[in-house]
């Protein structure tokens, strides 16, 4: 077998985090009953006209600046014409001729090797609706809620050579976009979608092979599998002396295989032309400067600051800053309780564990930093013990409960009455003569069993340290 190289470029669609749609005032909120986030404009009713949401331009500029792009200060919207029921106007308002950003790059690192991936362009466009096939009625129904949700499409240069590089690129993009606050980038909800353009060629060749475009991957893992699958499929074809057909393919992650959707010959002519309903967008130097000045602190700067300001290790700071959401919680909670290391521990250990358990993305974290700060204060004051705090934190994580209220309601406070604790301990000692004998015979570990029994009898509402101390006193009397 000859030696091959894979050449990959990505088209990433990213839903912007604006409150309203790109050309009307409808909400962009995910979910909602079908066709409830719809007005005559986004439903494409005859006679309606689009009015550009300025925030979309702001976000696209912010992304363009962060991805080191040239900004097209006189840009235009174009109509992409095609018939499909999820597109009520039968054209999508997009940008072809003068996209808002061009010629950028983003730096990635795979196994310690740094690489720069070129950004060909970023353009603004509107999302389409969703078709749902109703098996019962055997018909297709359409939900226009997503119609007109603003997107940016980030088109990379064909600079990636492996699935690892693609994942690193996507992770970097996601982190940047989340940091900017321009998108929540949730793949499950479709707010980040990647199409993969892939071709293979013999190592050493400077000519690009015939590429295919693959759609419909909804997780990074699926993307990695799709890349492996497509790479192998193309290499097999070439090894068999066949050629790759330029086509669009749909990835089926359940079957781990892709299927041809349409070939280049069937490719539609979208008859792009400038949308006459929208005047060109002029981005003044002042506007651009304002956007640049308002760019938030990005990850590298934040990481360095955490080490410097909070005295965290680089390792911990890296974990905290991986997601803007976690970093924001960290800073807010640390500011309230003034215990950055403690906050950091809760986030790095418990939060990360729970994210894994619940299969959640850090962007989905819902609990408020105030509650974490309160929990730390309760622990600090000795009102609750650490195992209780762990349980309470789970409640904060899942339901964002107020720990003060919750501890009170559930009666989780440590029993402050030493007399009660003492009598319980005495009962335990009396009931476990063997353990007491073991302890006196030098098996100091036996005390652990007695502490456990005491905690159980106290229903957890005792501080294990205090129990330990009192037990030792009683045993040594």
């Amino acid at each position, binding site marked *: 077998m000859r030696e091959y190289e894979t050449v990959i470029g990505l088209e990433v669609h990213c839903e912007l985090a604006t409150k309203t749609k790109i050309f009307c005032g409808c909400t962009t909120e995910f979910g909602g009953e079908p066709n409830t986030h719809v007005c005559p404009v986004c439903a494409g009713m*005859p006679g309606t006209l689009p009015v550009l949401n300025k925030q979309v331009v702001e976000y696209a500029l912010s992304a363009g600046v962060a991805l080191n792009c040239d900004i097209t200060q006189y840009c235009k919207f174009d109509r992409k014409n095609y018939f499909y029921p999820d597109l009520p106007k*039968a054209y999508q308002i997009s940008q072809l001729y003068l996209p808002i950003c061009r010629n950028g790059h983003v730096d990635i690192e795979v196994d310690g090797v740094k690489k720069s991936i070129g950004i060909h362009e970023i353009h603004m466009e509107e999302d389409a609706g969703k078709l749902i096939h109703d098996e019962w009625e055997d018909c297709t129904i359409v939900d226009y809620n997503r119609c007109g949700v603003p997107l940016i499409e980030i088109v990379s240069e064909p600079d990636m050579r492996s699935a690892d590089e693609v994942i690193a690129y996507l992770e970097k993009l996601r982190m940047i976009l989340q940091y900017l606050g321009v998108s929540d980038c949730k793949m499950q909800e479709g707010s980040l979608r990647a199409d993969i353009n892939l071709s293979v060629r013999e190592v050493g060749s400077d000519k690009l092979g015939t590429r295919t475009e693959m759609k419909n991957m909804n997780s990074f893992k699926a993307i990695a599998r799709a890349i492996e699958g497509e790479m192998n499929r193309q290499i097999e074809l070439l090894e068999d002396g066949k050629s790759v057909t330029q086509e669009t393919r749909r990835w089926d992650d359940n079957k781990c295989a892709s299927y041809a959707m349409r070939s280049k010959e069937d490719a539609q*002519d979208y008859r792009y032309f400038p949308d006459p309903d929208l005047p060109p967008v002029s981005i003044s130097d002042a506007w651009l400067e304002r956007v640049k000045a308002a760019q938030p602190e990005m990850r590298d700067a934040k990481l360095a600051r955490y080490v410097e300001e909070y005295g965290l290790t680089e390792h911990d700071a890296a974990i905290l800053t991986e997601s803007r959401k976690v970093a924001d919680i960290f800073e807010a909670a640390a500011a309230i309780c003034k215990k950055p290391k403690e906050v950091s521990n809760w986030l790095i250990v418990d939060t990360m564990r729970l994210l894994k358990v619940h299969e959640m993305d850090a962007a989905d974290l819902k609990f408020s930093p105030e509650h974490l700060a309160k929990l730390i204060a309760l622990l600090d004051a000795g009102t609750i013990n650490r195992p209780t705090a762990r349980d309470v934190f789970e409640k904060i994580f899942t339901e964002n409960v107020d720990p003060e209220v919750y501890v009170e309601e559930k009666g989780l406070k440590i029993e402050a009455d030493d007399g009660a604790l003492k009598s319980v301990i005495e009962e335990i000692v009396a009931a476990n003569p063997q353990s007491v004998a073991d302890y006196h015979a030098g098996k100091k570990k036996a005390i652990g069993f007695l502490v456990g029994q005491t905690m159980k009898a106290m229903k957890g509402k005792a501080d294990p340290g205090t129990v330990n101390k009192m037990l030792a006193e009683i045993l040594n009397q």
Partner: protein
Amino acid sequence: MEITALTALELGKKIKAGEVTVEEAVKAQLEKIKERDGMYNCYVTVMEEEALKRAAEVQKQIDAGELDDSPLAGVPVAIKDNICTKGVLTTCSSKILNNFKPPYDATVIEKLEAAGAVIIGKVNMDEFAMGSTTETSYYGPTKNPWNTERVPGGSSGGAAAAVAAEEAWYALGSDTGGSIRQPSSFCGVTGLKPTYGSVSRYGLIAYASSLDQIGPIARNVSDCAAVFEAIAGYDAKDSTSVKMEDYHFTEALVDDVKGLRIGIPKGYLGEGLDPEVKEAVLAAAKTLEEKGAVVEMFDMDMVDYAIPAYYVIASAEASSNLSRFDGVKYGYRTPDFEDLQDVYKKTRDEGFGMEVKRRMMIGAFVLSSGYYDAYYIKALQVKALIKKGFDEAFAKYDIILGPTAPTTALKMGENLSDPLKMYLGDIYTVSVNLAGLPGISLPCGIDSNGLPIGVQMIGQAFSEKTLIRAAYSLEQTRSYERPACVKGEN
């Protein structure tokens, strides 16, 4: 004199004075429509019930003094059937929208209603405003009240004919390449195509978005000025709308053209122009000269290229604008179909008429890859040159004057089979849309067939006041001619 023969402003005055109630006005108009519309077919929808209900509301507002600043309060109006009216059938005179009731009002409807207007019905047009004769309507052709063997012009033929036949005091039309001015000329009434951007397009079902503009058709210049005053204005819902400095258009109703510089492009008097039309137009120029205007002939470039550029740009935009009519969401849907492609194909095949299909195909062609530069981009370049030509002319003149159309009203059926001939009829009007300028057509004579002749005046962008003053001054020199039918001879 019957109240239906009054001008809109005259009726408005009588209503304010309590001499005529709004209900009486509405009933008188409904009566006329019943009597005459069988003959002319101006209306697609007559809103009898809604208009009577609305009349009572408006009367209350007038009595309460809430509409003292609205000279048109209580005056019924006819609306071209491509302007959306909430809950009222809006068909664009097409089968494909035969059941379409918009869920919202166009901005112009909101503005008119705020000024106390009573909408009496929706008027006929060429299907999707594509045509110059109102013969392409799915709901049958409208006939010219001056002579029922003649077309009323188009595409706002129903609007112009209704105003001429006194089936409406005034109407709103739309003008993409002459669709207000040419039917006004053919029907002997006055029509104003405002500067692009001065009147909101929100709710106007688009034919060619970069050229479409809503404007008034009425029996005289004063009414047009008053209606324009009511509907003009910046609209946040239309990104192409523009805020003007001065909206007091009726202030320009002054009989004074002293020192006004008027230019007549020689190219507007050349081949293809009916000699009787030419004579009447030149006579109108002479009248203005006698009143103190300075009139000159001059050469203007690109006149011959306006029509091809117009049909490329308008068709391109139309092919995209009309794609949404696919049988999926509203409007006509073919009853029998196999699959999605079949729904699209059959619905559109059965739902659209010939002229609309022709223009959509031209449009799809000029936008297709490989032809885009040769046709669409070239047409945009011509458009830019035409605009430049006007800019140069307006450095020397305040007003450009010429015929509205090369002929008076054509015989029914004459142009339907010869689209190219029909397109050439737009020669004097399309360049005004390409340059985004205001233009007005008003009557300037009657030809030997007894048909009205229109003169067109064109102004600089947003110079409607100058245009209104010149047109008003010319209008003072002649009396309003009513078609034979209304005089009771038909």
